[in-house]
């Protein structure tokens, strides 16, 4: 019974709770039992909040008895990347430097999930200060990929991806500055949404790059993702960069199909360095979309797309150093080697180049929109263009191929952060020994709804998201 419960999707467990088929206490106990069993293998959790989770589950069951119209996620166990502050609770940010940090305020994203009734049952491991795309962490445990523990989870939302993929929790928040939701989601066979810049408040979330940081969910299915996004999206007076545009109900018309939807296929850049097996699987997903009624349209990417990749890195390291400069100067050796070496270029960045990268963003977005969204509704690309590297490869920064490998991992995601656009990662198969592959759909600003509808049409026509790792 316990395995049956944890194998349900977030959407289905919410329905089962609403129908009284199962209680939140039963669901939470099943998740906690799986966490206790698998965390020693997967290292996905920094802290399991057992007592709090059970107490909150009992309260949720009581509330359901007395509430006529319960909150949409009432009693559903989730857990989140250890960078979302909750007042009075530790938030280690994947680091030694902040391992005992206790914030005095709660992040808006967590508050909104609380309001939606969700439970928060663990703090999840992550890449140190969210700066790293492989998932490797030199200073706290590195989460393992449930599909193949010898290969990377992707990062930086590594524990989020590992725990959701392992059927420990039903969904988790990640953060995405250059691919940190979409890459681990793709590596672990999950759906990951990086929303439009400004769609979700960053208040109370550990910053890395204020111009690029976004917050979104990693889930097993598209509908699960839409449910979580609906709960966290929207304007917040505590984050002045959050948009005032209304938040649609992403579940509305999510099964409406994609007949006539124009899907762009990039003629250049996104497939330039893509492995042939990955490319075959990603392109096969286009056939499925076409069979569902989508119209496939070749699209030429503007020349600036390659530079957008580098400009994302420039802004991340420069703004990151702005945040970390005191610690980097005074506590250099308390950072992991990979992390401090990733921050270091920011110290040398001339201010004028940083400002040009910032000020040129509107022009580069305008060029991209004219090239893409004047012709199609969404753009279809790979997420990770290579088969997943091994954990050993990700841990050896001295190897000859390390920089090329890390550059390739984020090649298809970083430009989307620079452009501020929404992108969703959708599983579409496996290469080699249980190594998941995904495609990415990129949409117009604030059009997450179309991405969910297109991703749902694909998911409903395939069975990738129903597969689970053998643990």
């Amino acid at each position: 019974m316990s395995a049956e419960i944890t194998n349900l999707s977030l959407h289905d467990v919410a329905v089962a709770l609403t129908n009284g088929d199962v209680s939140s206490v039963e669901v939470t106990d099943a998740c906690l039992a799986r966490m206790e069993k698998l965390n020693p293998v997967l290292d996905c959790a920094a802290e399991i909040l057992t007592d709090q989770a059970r107490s909150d589950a009992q309260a949720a069951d009581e509330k359901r008895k007395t509430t006529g119209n319960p909150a949409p996620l009432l009693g559903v166990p989730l857990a989140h990347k250890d960078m979302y502050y909750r007042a009075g609770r530790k938030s280690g940010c994947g680091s030694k430097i902040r391992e005992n940090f206790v914030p005095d305020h709660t992040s808006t994203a967590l508050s909104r999930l609380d309001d939606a009734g969700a439970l928060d049952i663990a703090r999840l491991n992550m890449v140190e200060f969210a700066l790293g795309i492989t998932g490797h962490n030199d200073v706290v445990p590195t989460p393992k990929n449930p599909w193949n523990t010898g290969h990377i989870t992707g990062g930086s939302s590594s524990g989020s991806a590992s725990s959701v993929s392992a059927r420990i929790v039903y969904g988790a928040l990640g953060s995405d500055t250059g691919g940190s939701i979409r890459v681990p989601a793709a590596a672990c066979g999950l759906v990951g949404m990086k929303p439009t810049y400004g769609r979700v408040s960053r208040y109370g979330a550990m910053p890395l790059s204020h111009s690029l940081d976004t917050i979104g969910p990693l889930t097993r299915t598209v509908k699960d993702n839409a449910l979580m996004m609906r709960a966290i999206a929207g304007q917040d007076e505590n984050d002045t960069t959050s948009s005032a545009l209304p938040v649609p109900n992403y579940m509305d018309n999510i099964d409406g199909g994609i007949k006539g939807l124009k899907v762009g296929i990039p003629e250049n850049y996104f497939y330039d360095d893509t492995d042939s097996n990955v490319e075959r699987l990603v392109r096969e997903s286009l056939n499925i979309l076409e069979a569902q009624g989508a119209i496939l349209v070749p699209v030429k990417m503007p020349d600036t797309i390659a530079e957008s990749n580098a400009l994302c890195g420039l802004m991340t390291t420069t703004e990151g150093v702005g945040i970390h400069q005191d610690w980097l100067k005074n506590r250099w050796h308390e950072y992991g080697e990979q992390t401090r070496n990733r921050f270091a270029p920011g110290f040398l960045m001339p201010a004028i180049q940083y400002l040009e990268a910032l000020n040129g963003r509107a022009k580069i977005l305008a060029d991209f929109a004219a090239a893409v969204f004047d012709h199609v509704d969404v753009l279809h690309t790979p997420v990770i263009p290579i088969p997943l590297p091994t954990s050993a490869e990700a841990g050896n920064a001295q190897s000859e191929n390390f920089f090329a490998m890390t550059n390739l991992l984020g090649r298809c995601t970083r430009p989307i952060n620079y452009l501020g656009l929404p992108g969703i990662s959708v599983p579409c198969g496996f290469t080699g020994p249980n190594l998941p592959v995904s495609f990415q759909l990129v949409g117009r600003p604030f059009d997450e709804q179309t991405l969910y509808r297109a991703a749902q049409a694909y998911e409903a026509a395939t069975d990738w998201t129903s597969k689970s790792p053998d643990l």
Partner: protein
Amino acid sequence: MENKNTNNASSWLKRFNSLERTEDQLFHTANTTQSFCDAVSRTATDTMFEREPSQFFSLLHELAPESLKK
């Protein structure tokens, strides 16, 4: 390990950021910074005179679905 990008980087870091790094240690750092600067120079082909970051956020909203603007 000799590289022209590291010629002044270590003294710059010490002078302005109080960081002690040798030129050897700065080899990849300086090359990464250089690659970022090169990307900027390739994109900054016309005048930046009347540009500011807020234009990016305005454009994101201009490009949003009309159904959200009503």
